[in-house]
């Protein structure tokens, strides 16, 4: 009954369990030939898991898969590739020191006399790239090309292996708005060539712009599959989250005061010893949120680390409330009134093997009343933890559970609670909503605005343009370690920012207009 050859893919009653979670619970999914089908759901909904089952990276516990009407068992990516399935992963699967061509042919290299046939490799890559309009530089090392090009390499990799069914896992997360437009064109031309595409996302706008149909999943369960043209973003949001969501952030006009943070001409190197910050300058005022927008890898991580004393400043000065803190240790910087929400909450934000109350006290652990004469006072610590858990709505059975057992959103709330409790003058939030659910995003946003209204200076570093546009009073664009320009919220549009993020700068006021007002 399911043998309908109009479907490129049919997944029936797929269930996949991990220890403690059912990531996919009896999900049905059908991909028509030649369509672009969006798979929509919040972070952690189970989208990637479903597709990894299709690509043979995971084995589903229950259910059946049909490809072109034929029942199949996909026990490894090799078999998926044989059935014409290609997957572009959320985190690219490319070998950085290899050339583009080497990455594309890896695993199915053309040979001549036992050797890789370099000439043929490059020819095949170039002709594929021409056929689908996927412009790549086949002889460059992958580590030297842009993220957008890396993505095209991933798509070519799948096409080279003869993929007719393409799975793109959150392909737009790393792209500028202009690159997203390019990707949409690429996807359209691929379907014109007869390919079928599954496009995973948690962004509603993209679904409307790209997809023919959309399947929504929530908490591992199928909600519905609908035609995009028959629905609205609000309806989709409701299906995705399970309740009405307010997509707009509600805030009053900022009332900025004096300068709290002054970053003057910062230079720093990255882990590979290359220049990461290249004369970066800006100010953050009391009572405002300054956003740093940019494509990943343009110095954002290094900037956060320099400001918090975790990375060496090569040149320039960081001033906090007029005091030069460039050479301060991290502890001194914190004690001078800086709160830090790090970009990688599992690596820098929390000790995952510690309990929540231990995590909540980190950084204050040596202070009275939590410690006295070198001895911890756990009654005080736990009492304070219980209060923070309540104030910040951290969903946990108690303060005694391990941080690692919390969901991403609740882990982030633990960090927020700890940093806000210190009552800092400057709050440095790096990607505060990365990988958390909509409920937590709303909460974190409202808390950041609350801080601003309480007269704090907030520096928000984010890769999500929507977040930057809705929260920030002023927006600085970082490109190759430099602030290209700083815009007022009113003058900033997605398009303007996108162009600046891609380095197409408008030459206006570079460096000398750090204040933008």
């Amino acid at each position, binding site marked *: 009954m399911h043998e309908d050859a109009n479907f490129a893919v049919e997944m029936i009653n797929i269930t996949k369990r991990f220890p403690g979670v059912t990531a996919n619970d009896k999900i049905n999914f059908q991909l028509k030939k030649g369509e672009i089908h969006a798979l929509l759901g919040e972070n952690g909904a189970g989208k990637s898991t479903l597709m*990894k089952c299709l690509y043979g*990276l*995971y084995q589903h516990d229950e259910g059946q898969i049909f490809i072109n009407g034929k029942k199949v068992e996909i026990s*490894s*990516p*090799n078999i998926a*590739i044989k059935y014409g399935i290609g*997957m572009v*992963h959320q985190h690219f*699967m*490319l*070998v*950085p*020191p*290899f050339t583009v061509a*080497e*990455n594309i042919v*890896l*695993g*199915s*290299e053309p*040979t001549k006399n*036992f*050797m*890789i046939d370099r000439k043929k490799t490059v020819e095949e890559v170039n002709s594929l790239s021409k056929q689908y309009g996927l412009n790549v530089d086949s002889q460059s090392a992958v580590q030297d090309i842009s993220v957008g090009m890396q993505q095209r390499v991933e798509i070519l*990799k799948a096409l080279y*292996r003869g993929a007719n069914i393409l799975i793109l896992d959150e392909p737009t997360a790393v792209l500028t708005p202009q690159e997203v437009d390019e990707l949409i064109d690429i996807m359209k031309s691929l379907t014109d060539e007869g390919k079928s595409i599954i496009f995973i996302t948690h962004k509603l706008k993209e679904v409307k712009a790209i997809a023919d149909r959309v399947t929504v999943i929530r908490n591992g369960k199928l909600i519905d599959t609908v035609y995009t043209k028959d629905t609205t973003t609000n309806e989709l949001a409701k299906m995705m989250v399970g309740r009405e969501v307010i997509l707009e952030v509600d805030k009053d006009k900022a009332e900025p005061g004096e300068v709290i943070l002054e970053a003057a001409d910062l230079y720093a190197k990255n882990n590979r*010893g290359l220049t990461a910050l290249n004369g970066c300058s800006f100010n953050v005022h009391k009572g405002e949120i300054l956003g740093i927008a940019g494509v990943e890898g343009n110095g954002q991580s290094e900037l956060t680390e320099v400001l918090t004393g975790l990375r060496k400043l090569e040149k320039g000065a960081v001033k906090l409330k007029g005091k030069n803190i460039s050479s301060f240790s991290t502890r001194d910087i914190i004690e001078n009134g800086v709160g830090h929400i790090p970009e990688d909450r599992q690596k820098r934000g929390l000790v995952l093997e510690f309990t929540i109350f231990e995590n909540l006290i980190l950084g204050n652990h040596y202070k009275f009343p939590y410690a006295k004469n070198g001895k911890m006072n756990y009654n005080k610590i736990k009492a304070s933890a219980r209060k923070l858990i309540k104030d910040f709505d951290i969903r946990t059975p108690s303060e005694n559970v391990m941080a690692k057992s919390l969901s991403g959103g609740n882990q982030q709330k633990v960090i927020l609670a700890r940093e806000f409790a210190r009552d800092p003058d400057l709050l440095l939030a790096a990607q505060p909503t990365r990988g958390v659910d909509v409920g937590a995003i709303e909460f974190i946003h409202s808390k950041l605005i609350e801080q601003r209204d309480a007269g704090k200076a907030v520096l928000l570093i984010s890769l999500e343009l929507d977040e930057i546009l809705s929260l920030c009073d002023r927006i600085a664009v970082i490109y190759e370690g430099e602030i290209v320009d700083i815009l007022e919220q009113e003058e900033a549009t997605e398009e303007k920012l996108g162009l600046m993020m891609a380095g197409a700068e408008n030459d206006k006021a570079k460096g000398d207009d750090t204040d933008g007002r």
Partner: protein
Amino acid sequence: MLINNIISLLNTSLRMAAPLILAALGGVFSERSGVINIALEGIMLISAFMAMVGSYLTGNPWIGVLAAVFFGGLVAAVHAFVSIHLKANQVVSGTAINIFAAGVTSFMLRVMFESAGQSPSVTKVKDWTLPIINDIPILGDILGKHTPFVYISLILVVFSYWLLFKTPFGLRVRSVGEHPAAADSVGINVYKIRYIAVIMSGLFAGLAGASLSIGLLDLFVENMTSGRGFIALAAMIFGKWTPQGALLAALLFGFADALQMLAQTMGLSFIPRQFLLMAPYILTILALAGVIGSANPPAADGESYEKE
């Protein structure tokens, strides 16, 4: 006089470099696939012993070479199993093999020959003489006549370079050492490639071991590797994980060794020999510290791979 000294210096350098080249090539294969192999030292020692035993029992040193290579591969397979399959710490596994090797060879020496310290003399592999080249003055004196291990090591450098950088197998070995998940996602069997690479490193180290007991000498001496496995690792690092780099580094270290020997025979003491013996390690630390270019290991070197 001077020219003779220089010739003998270069000749000795090559002879001393051969075991280092062979073991370093082994290191290159293992680490390029993402498995740290500090067991090279122990594998060499066991192989040196087995080479002697093979030659002793059959009177044919080439049987000794085969035995050395076989046992080299076998011990490496144990390291591969522990590191790849059981996902144990690779340095700990290697160290355990090194300690085991020192113990088992001393023990077997006693059991088989009832002697401590060294084995009786056995037939060693006969030197090869290169036609034509041997007749060229100077060059012939340096290169013309050597134990076969010298020539084998040079040929294997070329072969290894070809295998690693020209063939699909080499590309896959390198991909597995840099980004195993990426290799996995295009259907490359990460475990299989790593097994092959680590066992290959054992074959190379086996040859290196044989070159000590039935190439340089004609008997097994307790602990006769005396750190050469580690110097070979140093050569691999100094040579930036490439066969050609490892060759140059091994030649340099062989030269330091030859210089030290020459100074000793001539009774020269302007540089204490200990300093020359230290040279490989100092150069390696400098290389690691980034003084002489940067030395970046394969990105996934030492990490066991967990399939999703």
